[in-house]
């Protein structure tokens, strides 16, 4: 395989108001290669991708495509040069069909000429087949699952026959089998001569798939376009965060068996389709709820919080049956908190301040006669937690939308700590946050449990699950498949979990 330089970026600089996002970053992509772009949140990965694809314009530096210097004035120009991208955010039009979405950039052949739908569907079917997707191209995108949408988005980038294809966290919402399928396809693409850039937070994936790597740290190159060979996980982590990863290993925690459950679900059935759910979490215990995307875990948490009705069974808090009809009741009567997986949609009010977000759960309990409540009082209550979590913000008045993902996540945890909940449901706590913050949150969850909080941990991140949980419950298709006592060994536990999931699929 003759591998030559397909694309080069040298000395790229880019400033945004108040921040210098990129301080002279370089990157070289070769043909017949999959290149990993790694870095913590805010290291500048997305900015670099947006510059390469013409969304932003660099303040300094050069982009060289196959030996020619290029300036992309808009994403359309980048596409015309066959530089394709799959962005982190969804960019599909829900009511359009799969085929229409795939060919969105190529639809308008002429103003009045009718679109040739037969041809469109045929072309789309080819790309879908290549990706191993069994979807009718005429299906509206809104009817697809999130994972399928992601794959359609990839098909869309492929249909442009990109020579350089950038993939920004393409596996974030894919199941392991879908990921495998995607990877084998990307390898095929690589072998046919394409040059791919792969961004992911999952280091295991990057190591498995990529042959060379560029690491960014604080807007500069921590390493530039070096082969992946010879780099261990710890080496990469050291490049990313500038030091070795804290050991943060699993440790056995003993919960005396005599401790009564803080929350117990007995034969719970819900209107969403959960059946026969029995589980309990004792004071001071971390119970993991593992499952693939769509297994019904977040849905179960929302049913516990009264967002959807139970059709049978009971939820008991401290041994007493509890009827929870809203998050407000869960919080103020039963002291149950919920850290949402969807930070931007449900976790935070992005346009409000740090104080307005962290204090939202304590307004009611703090308010005096006639609801009287001063900022001072809220600040007094909330500041210790903001400091404890080391939230980096210029002030409590800062708008949350302006903070990094990791800091946002810290705030969405801090508000439940401030409320002093006894039972905490934590849903995907480390989605889209960097390694440092992730390790920090792990320590925090352990500390909370040590201090007596009952924690139900929902996560699709298997290492995280095995690191934190005392017991692991496995859910598939809205039913609990079984329980494993965590012994901290990755190989043994992950095999056990997969067996539980596949046992149900085989049955």
């Amino acid at each position, binding site marked *: 395989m003759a591998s030559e330089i397909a694309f080069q970026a040298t000395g790229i600089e880019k400033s945004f108001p108040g921040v210098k996002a990129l301080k002279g970053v370089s990157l070289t992509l070769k043909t017949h290669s999959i290149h990993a772009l790694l870095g913590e949140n805010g290291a500048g990965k997305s900015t670099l991708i947006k510059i390469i694809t013409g969304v932003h314009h660099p303040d300094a530096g050069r982009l060289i495509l196959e030996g020619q210097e290029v300036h992309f004035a808009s994403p359309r120009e980048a596409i015309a040069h066959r530089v394709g991208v799959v962005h982190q955010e969804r960019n599909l039009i829900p009511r359009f069909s799969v085929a229409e979405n795939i060919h969105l950039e190529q639809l308008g052949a002429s103003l009045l000429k009718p679109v040739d739908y037969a041809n469109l569907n045929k072309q789309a079917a080819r790309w879908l087949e290549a990706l191993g997707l069994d979807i009718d191209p005429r299906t509206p995108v809104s009817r697809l699952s999130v994972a399928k949408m992601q794959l359609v988005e990839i098909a869309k980038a492929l249909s442009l026959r990109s020579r350089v294809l950038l993939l920004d966290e393409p596996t974030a919402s894919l199941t392991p089998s879908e990921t495998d399928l995607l990877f084998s396809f990307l390898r095929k693409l690589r072998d046919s001569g394409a040059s791919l850039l792969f961004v992911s937070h999952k280091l295991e994936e990057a190591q498995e798939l990529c042959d060379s790597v560029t690491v960014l740290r604080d807007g500069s190159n921590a390493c530039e376009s070096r082969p992946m060979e010879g780099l261990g996980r710890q080496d990469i982590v050291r490049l990313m965060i500038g030091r070795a990863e804290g050991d943060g290993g699993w440790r056995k925690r003993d919960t005396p068996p005599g401790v009564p459950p803080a929350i117990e679900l007995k034969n719970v059935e819900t209107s969403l389709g959960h059946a026969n759910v029995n589980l309990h979490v004792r004071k001071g215990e971390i119970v993991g709820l593992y499952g693939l995307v769509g297994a019904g875990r977040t849905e179960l948490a929302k049913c516990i919080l009264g967002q959807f009705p139970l059709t049978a069974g009971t939820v008991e808090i401290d041994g007493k049956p509890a009827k929870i009809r809203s998050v407000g009741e869960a919080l103020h009567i039963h002291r149950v908190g919920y850290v949402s997986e969807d930070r931007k949609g449900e976790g935070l009010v992005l346009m409000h301040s740090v104080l307005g977000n962290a204090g939202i759960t304590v307004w009611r309990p703090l308010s005096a006669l006639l609801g009287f409540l001063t*900022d001072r009082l809220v600040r007094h209550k909330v500041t210790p937690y903001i*400091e404890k979590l080391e939230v980096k913000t210029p002030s409590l008045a800062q708008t949350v939308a302006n903070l990094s993902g990791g800091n946002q996540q810290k705030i969405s945890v801090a508000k439940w700590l401030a409320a002093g909940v006894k039972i905490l449901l934590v849903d995907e706590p480390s989605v889209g946050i960097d390694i440092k913050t992730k390790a920090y949150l792990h320590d925090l969850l352990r500390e909370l449990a040590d201090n007596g909080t009952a924690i139900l941990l929902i996560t699709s991140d298997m290492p995280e699950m095995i690191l934190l949980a005392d017991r692991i419950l496995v859910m598939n298709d809205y039913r609990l498949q079984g329980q494993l006592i965590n012994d901290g060994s990755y190989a043994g536990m992950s095999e056990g979990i997969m067996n539980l999931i596949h046992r149900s699929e085989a049955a």
Partner: protein
Amino acid sequence: MSYPDLPAKGPSGDIVGKPRRNTAATRFYLTNEFGLIALIVLFALAFQFATDGFFSPFNLFSLGRIAAVNIMIGLAMMVVVITGGLNLAVGAIGVCAAMTCGYLIEVVGLPWPIAILSAVALGAMLGFINGWTSVRTGLHSFIITLATMSIFFGVMIFLTRAESYRALPPVFAAFGRMKLLGIFSPLLLVSLMAALFLGYLYNLTAVGREMLAAGAKPEAAEMSGINVGRIFIYCHMLSGALAACAALMLVARNGAAIPSMAGQLGQDWLLIAFLGPVLGGTLLTGGKASVLGTCLGAFLVTMLTSGLLLLQLGDFWIQSFLGLLLLAAVLMDKTRRTFLARRNMA
């Protein structure tokens, strides 16, 4: 709602507060409130030169009387706009409340304080109907209040046979004619009280904060333990009560409760109802309120109308002018916001 900046915090340096005095000043000059004060001064001077007697005691008094009602109308809309909704029925609710007051005094013979309280309660009740229907159906309040505007107004016309109540106790008209210090109408005090109450609500109470959070992001507010549906209903009830107050102030000004006092279906109030909050910097998408801005905005509009009338411009010109003003205000606000975002100061 604004929080004062915190000073630098602790040696750990977790909350790093750099003093940014110059940007704080810039930020103040870029607020809607400052812009409005500047415009008010500017236009006041312009009208002083261009017209006869803009600053005469008589004109100031009548300006204040009209401004008081307009401010109240603006506030009635603002309290719903912060939920990301709107209340097209402000005028209809107001007229219904005013006619109820007139009916209770003239036909039933209740003492006027009780009649006034009942009228405000009716306003809140009609607001409740708007809020409850909108929350329960999940439809945008635009379509709900568009419907209730016609319903409320139609029922009112049917019940009153479109006749006015003119035999009100003299205390109404006396209050409307009263002058404080020779130039101020006490109606302004009523609006001031309403504004102070709302300022208190949004800055110093739990429920006010919940209103803003629910308006900014209902899903996040709900998942943080706020009963969003109930909060939205409160906002609509507050809007109805404030609309009723505005109409009662109008009754005091006119000395009578007249079915057409807010135009057909109460639509004459709509432009002013939106101009106040929008000029004042209340976001139409919800989550941010400016009580002072709304008051200043409503005052500016009143002043422009009055000044242009003194310049003997036709009424239709003034309407067109106000429409242009609304459009300009929205565009200005967008520009200002982009600027702040660029400088990372929003």
